[in-house]
């Protein structure tokens, strides 16, 4: 048989082991068809427990007001908005993997895109909680929606970055969900057609929308994925750009900078990839998917982490330089006193940020470290701690000592309910992720099959012949492949 697909042997395989299409189905669908293990139940129950604590924290917040958190007139945005930006940022890696890498035709995305997209959706769900409950009188949340009303009619302010945020986050969530689910349809159909149990036939039958795998449908599916990827790419950049506008368009020293949009987007991708690493290192181990999410995948993602981490580092230093070079007294104070000064009340947070985000990821310049699972997992947690502190530094250290010393609020510490709300979103995130990993194929089946004969280990070995052919022979064979 003539070679249908060719990829140089120089590129390492993306699917290890001897696989055919059926084996791929078996490997990826197996965890769905097995009973949940004890580890799954423990993890799931912990997640649900956290979620319940979060719900109780929100209940207190709604009942007693957001004074339940230690927010005050000076620090109006504390943990709450920090967590919001953190979660939105985490979501970005999923879209980067699924959309931007699709446009760049990066084959390795197929192993990780499904889980990363799911992570995006859950992270955006968590992020959305914070601005909503931060409104205090949450029953009036619908005021942000523009519709003809009896209040004047008073429309929402379309010139405000906070309203842009409403549109950006809701659009981002919707589009990510559509992208993710349209990709899931064929894989759910695979699970449906293998189902033996009644409830599984029902559930996956409904969920797969009656997908048949018709050639015409695949053709449309490909067109849909490509256009959705094309739409998601500027969308994902716009989302964190708009989140950064919440700060950058204000007149608060420390926020009022034009570098924010690219700096926020790089930071978002950085933290998102770290979260993907944390999740996938565990997922691949527990579900025995090491042959699909290979060390190669981990390695590539670590390269992105060191790249984006360094971009973030450059942004930190640029900010610092401009604070000095701009010679604006207030900007200078925000940076030199509130942040760089280690002995200022919150100065320590700046150094945690620097250490976790800029210095420690540099370890990934070494190939050995990039391919070490323990180091990668540890670093992925460190990076997310660092990125949380980045948002904390940006938000709290900019506002806690502002223009008027009499309104300084130096000792800001969160209350248990503020922390509880944050833990609650972890609960929400992991509850969703546990359910996803149990009931949905965590790897895009059809996409793996699509690249299998090109990038699978056993198929790569057969490409040796092609490597020895002359260019003319090779071109002739490829032309007449089908």
């Amino acid at each position: 048989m003539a070679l249908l697909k060719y990829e140089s042997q120089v590129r390492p395989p993306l699917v290890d082991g001897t696989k055919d299409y059926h084996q791929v189905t078996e490997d990826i669908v197996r965890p769905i068809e097995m009973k949940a293990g004890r580890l799954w139940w423990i993890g799931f129950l912990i997640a649900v427990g956290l979620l319940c604590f979060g719900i109780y924290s929100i209940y207190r917040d709604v009942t007693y007001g957001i004074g339940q958190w230690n927010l005050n007139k000076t620090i109006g945005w504390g943990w709450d908005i920090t967590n919001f930006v953190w979660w939105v940022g985490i979501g970005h890696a999923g879209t980067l993997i699924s959309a931007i890498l699709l446009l760049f035709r990066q084959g390795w995305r197929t192993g990780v895109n499904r889980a990363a997209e799911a992570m995006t959706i859950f992270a955006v769900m968590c992020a959305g909680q914070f601005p909503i409950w931060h409104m205090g009188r949450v029953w009036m949340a619908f005021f942000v929606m523009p519709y003809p009303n009896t209040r004047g009619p008073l429309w929402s302010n379309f010139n405000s970055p906070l309203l842009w945020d409403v549109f950006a986050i809701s659009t981002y969530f919707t589009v990510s969900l559509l992208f993710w689910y349209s990709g899931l349809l064929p894989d759910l159909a695979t699970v449906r057609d293998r189902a033996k149990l009644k409830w599984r036939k029902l559930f996956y039958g409904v969920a797969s929308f009656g997908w048949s795998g018709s050639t015409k449908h695949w053709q449309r599916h490909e067109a849909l994925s490509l256009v959705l990827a094309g739409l998601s790419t500027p969308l994902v950049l716009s989302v964190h750009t708009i989140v950064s506008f919440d700060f950058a368009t204000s007149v608060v020293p420390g926020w009022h900078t034009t570098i924010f949009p690219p700096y926020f987007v790089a930071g978002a991708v950085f933290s998102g990839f770290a979260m993907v690493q944390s999740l996938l290192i565990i997922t691949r181990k527990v579900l025995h998917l090491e042959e699909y999410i290979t060390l190669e995948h981990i390695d590539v993602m670590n390269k992105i982490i060191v790249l984006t981490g360094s971009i973030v580092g450059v942004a930190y230093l640029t900010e610092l330089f401009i604070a000095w070079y701009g010679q604006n007294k207030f900007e200078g104070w925000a940076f030199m006193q509130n942040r760089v000064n280690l002995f200022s009340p919150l100065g320590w947070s700046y150094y945690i940020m620097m250490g976790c985000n800029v210095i420690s990821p540099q370890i990934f310049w070494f190939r050995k470290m990039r391919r070490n699972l323990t180091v990668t997992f540890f670093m992925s947690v460190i990076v997310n701690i660092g990125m949380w502190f980045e948002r904390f530094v940006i938000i709290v250290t900019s506002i806690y000592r502002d223009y008027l010393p009499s309104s300084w609020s130096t000792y800001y510490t969160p209350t248990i309910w503020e922390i509880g709300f944050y833990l609650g979103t972890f609960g929400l995130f992991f509850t969703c992720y546990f359910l996803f990993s149990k009931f949905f194929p965590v790897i895009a089946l059809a996409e793996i099959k699509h690249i299998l004969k090109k990038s699978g280990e056993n198929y790569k070995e057969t490409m040796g012949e092609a490597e020895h052919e002359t260019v003319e022979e090779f071109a002739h064979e490829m032309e007449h492949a089908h």
Partner: protein
Amino acid sequence: MSIKKFVVGGFKEEGALFTAVKNVRKSGYKIHDVYTPMPIHGLDKAMGLRDTSLHTAGFIYGITGTTTALSCIGWIFTSDWPINFGGKPHFSLPAWIPITFELTVLFAAVGMVLTFCYLCQIAPFVKKHHFSLRATDDLFIMVIECTEKTNETDLMAFLENSGAIDINIQNAETGWWLGRYDKDTKPFENKGTVIA
């Protein structure tokens, strides 16, 4: 839609499938469809399917989003309820770009997915006849429609020579019906009427 008779054959290799598609078409048989577990590039061309116009639909939806955003915000801020924000102009286009962009993307994405579902006739609780359960696993299932002139034994022998396995004859409804996959409901058989 109606119940028709089909000859069904499965292929294990893409290469054999492409050759078979070419030969089947050359011999004048009518390929109803080929069901595959993953997208196979070039198969649509080989089967003589035309390109999809889903992109064009997406573009139109996107433009609709852009116009909706601009016209709504423009009308609200310049005529319905003009508010003075620090003396800035009522018609402040640069500040509207983010929302305009988001709505463009939102309309295009939602519209395209709905159009996709409509064109493929897929939705929750939609049930179709699946010619082989392995079409979503590891086989490429070629389904050839039998007309009055078709000699089924010839056709089956022809498929076997092309390298097909699991060759069989099925009578199947080509449309969809409302149903669940855990129950074997085929409303068109019971009532004797055709649905959809």
